[in-house]
């Protein structure tokens, strides 16, 4: 049981990161019906922005308080990543809106290749690792001489994710922007007729998606302390799996899907084989789409002539 509880804690932590990225997929898919293939790489870019900011704050400006540094890193990463995603939407997706169905997908794949190679060219191909930012752990209980621990960084990830999700929930359900987003999701033409600025709403969707990906990115950097230019693809596909599992277009579904994928991955690694942990996630994706295409919380897709 002790291994199970430890994996439960690890899985929820990993799942929180996936969930934050998954929201980006699900929101963009909900509003413009496009799989934003570059989202995983936007996440990777945000990890790099967080890394640069962290090094800048600690080594050049000499901020010694880790809590303050982490907070600033989070804010800066959210700002700059939002800018990146806003520009991507503006340059690569907006000209293709309402065009041939495959065009935005190919454009997004191109953007994904561009982003990972841009980081490779500007930051070098090697893994970037930093010493652990946050140390310390709490022993929850000990069973059979196996201490089940919750580390401080895991706790931070849980808290930050929870706080951000509450803010995000408020934004989507209670504000004018959230209403506009939900209106565009249901019917863009109608929303435009009643005075919603569709272009601006879609831009803001990308900005929010990027900001949440940047939160995930900062948490990822704090948790693992290592990143390379190629680290966008696999978390991206897993987060997409989470979005599909939860029902694409459904926001709570994305978070729950993320946590489920995190749990499946850690449990699989613990009890079966760590080599095939990606196979587990990909199989979940395939099985969900084949047997439950609308996901856990999604609306069934009605086929119309």
């Amino acid at each position, binding site marked *: 049981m002790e291994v199970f509880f430890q994996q439960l804690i690890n899985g929820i932590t990993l799942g929180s990161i996936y969930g934050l990225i998954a929201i980006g997929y699900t929101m963009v898919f909900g509003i413009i019906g496009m799989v934003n293939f570059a989202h995983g790489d936007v996440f990777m870019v945000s990890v790099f922005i967080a890394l640069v900011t962290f090094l800048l704050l600690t080594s050049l400006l000499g901020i010694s308080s880790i809590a303050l540094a982490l907070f600033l890193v989070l804010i800066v990463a959210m700002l700059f990543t939002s800018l990146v995603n806003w520009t991507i939407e503006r340059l690569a997706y907006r000209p293709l809106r309402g065009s041939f169905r495959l065009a935005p997908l190919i*454009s997004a794949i*191109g953007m994904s290749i561009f982003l990972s*190679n841009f980081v490779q060219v500007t930051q070098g191909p090697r893994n970037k690792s930093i010493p652990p930012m946050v140390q310390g752990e709490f022993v929850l209980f000990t069973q059979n001489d196996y201490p089940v621990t919750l580390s401080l960084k895991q706790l931070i990830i849980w808290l930050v994710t929870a706080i951000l999700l509450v803010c995000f929930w408020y934004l989507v359900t209670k504000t004018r922007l959230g209403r506009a987003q939900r209106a565009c999701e249901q019917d863009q033409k109608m929303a435009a007729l009643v005075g919603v600025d569709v272009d601006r709403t879609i831009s803001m969707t990308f900005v929010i998606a990027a900001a949440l990906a940047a939160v995930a990115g900062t948490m990822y950097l704090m948790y693992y302390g290592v990143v390379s230019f190629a680290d966008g693809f696999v978390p991206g596909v897993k987060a997409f799996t989470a979005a599909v599992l939860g029902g694409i277009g459904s926001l709570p579904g994305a978070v729950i899907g993320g946590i489920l994928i995190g749990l499946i991955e850690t449990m699989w690694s613990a009890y079966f084989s760590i080599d095939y942990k990606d196979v587990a996630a990909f199989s979940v*994706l*395939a099985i969900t789409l084949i047997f439950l295409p609308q996901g856990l919380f999604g609306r069934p897709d009605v086929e119309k002539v």
Partner: protein
Amino acid sequence: MTSGAPAKRVDTARALRDAGLTALLAFGLFLPLVGFETVTDVRNDLILVTRWPLLFAMVAIAGLGRLAYSLAIEPWLQQRAMRPSAEPAPWRRHVASWIIPFALGFVILYPGIVLATAGFGRAVKWIDNFGIQVLIYVMLGWGLNIVVGLAGLLDLGYVAFYAVGAYSYALLAKTFGLSFWILLPLAGILASFWGILLGFPVLRLRGDYLAIVTLAFGEIIRIVLINWVDLTNGYAGITGIPRPTFFGIPFNAEEGGFASVFGLEFSPIYRTIFLYYLILALALLTAFVTVRLRRLPVGRAWEALREDEIACRSLGINTTNTKLTAFAMGAMFAGFAGSFFSARQGFISPDSFTFLESATILSIVVLGGMGSQIGVAIAAVVMIGGTEIMRELDFLKLFFGSTFDPTQYRMLLFGLAMVLIMIWRPRGLIATRDPSVVLKERKAIGKDLVKEGHG
């Protein structure tokens, strides 16, 4: 302006403001990743190095580019849009009718042209890196074109079948010593089995969902290839794969080798030229089979499926069989290409079958214009040939210093080109479609009338 339309005055103040905003945006975008570089120092710690000159150069390029766009390019585009669109000049139609025979002649004569211009020593590189490489992608593009372009099934895991073909040849040739000519069809058959196997569960899916599931299958096959070390030797890959022979005569320096049988001096170039014509024949076979299939009921059913699946079902077309045959045919050609690839390389590893390959092949099909075989070939030449040529641009070192390595920028420009071509021509380079059945005269279907299905 003589046409009488009032010329829109170039608004310099607006142009300057836009340029300033663009420069500001570029500054924000490039500041974290271009302005700072993370470097590992001697103590193995990660430190930051600033690159202000590069950052400001890029910001200046962005600002000036935007200024040039507002002052020169935009007015020119507007002026062009105002001109009444004329009928395409007759010379264009002449060019179009000559382009296929000309291209065919060129690819058949290509090794000779290279030998004559580059000489014996350097020709291997040009035929191998350039000719064979592009033709492999042309063939893969044409193969995937059956699935994506004709049947309208979006497949992002095509490279899995390429891998099945490559590993089938490598393992069977090494274990049982079978010849290339037996294994080539066998690899195709095995790959098409996999096509049917993976096609079955995804029959109900369409569009982006289908793409993602096929992507997942492609990745699963790659991960299995990495981890099933007993069979595939994992990351290390398989080495010493037997090379194809000239119908039984090996290409080596020994007695009884190709060179000695034909009384020639031994040179690796004969094998390269042979491989070139082999892949050319395979690619042309793919194209020929596709052209013929389009006229058969199954090909018509594919295209009908692409246009409207529900209408297909109402007309009594068995969509299950139609989709599975498309998957199987596409996979078979990938299997052929895969076995050729492993025979040409003599070495394969899972690294050759990443998602990036699938994305490359799909982008070639879409950039070429789905369904258009000439378009696919042009896209393969532009995208693969273009990135291969980046390896040859050593003269750029004269401008950017000796540390400048143009090959680094290959994939960067590849991704950028994908985005730009999509924005420029969202339906691909050749957007019109040739009908396979005509009543009186053959007319191309204009891009406005081309509908995409939901497949």
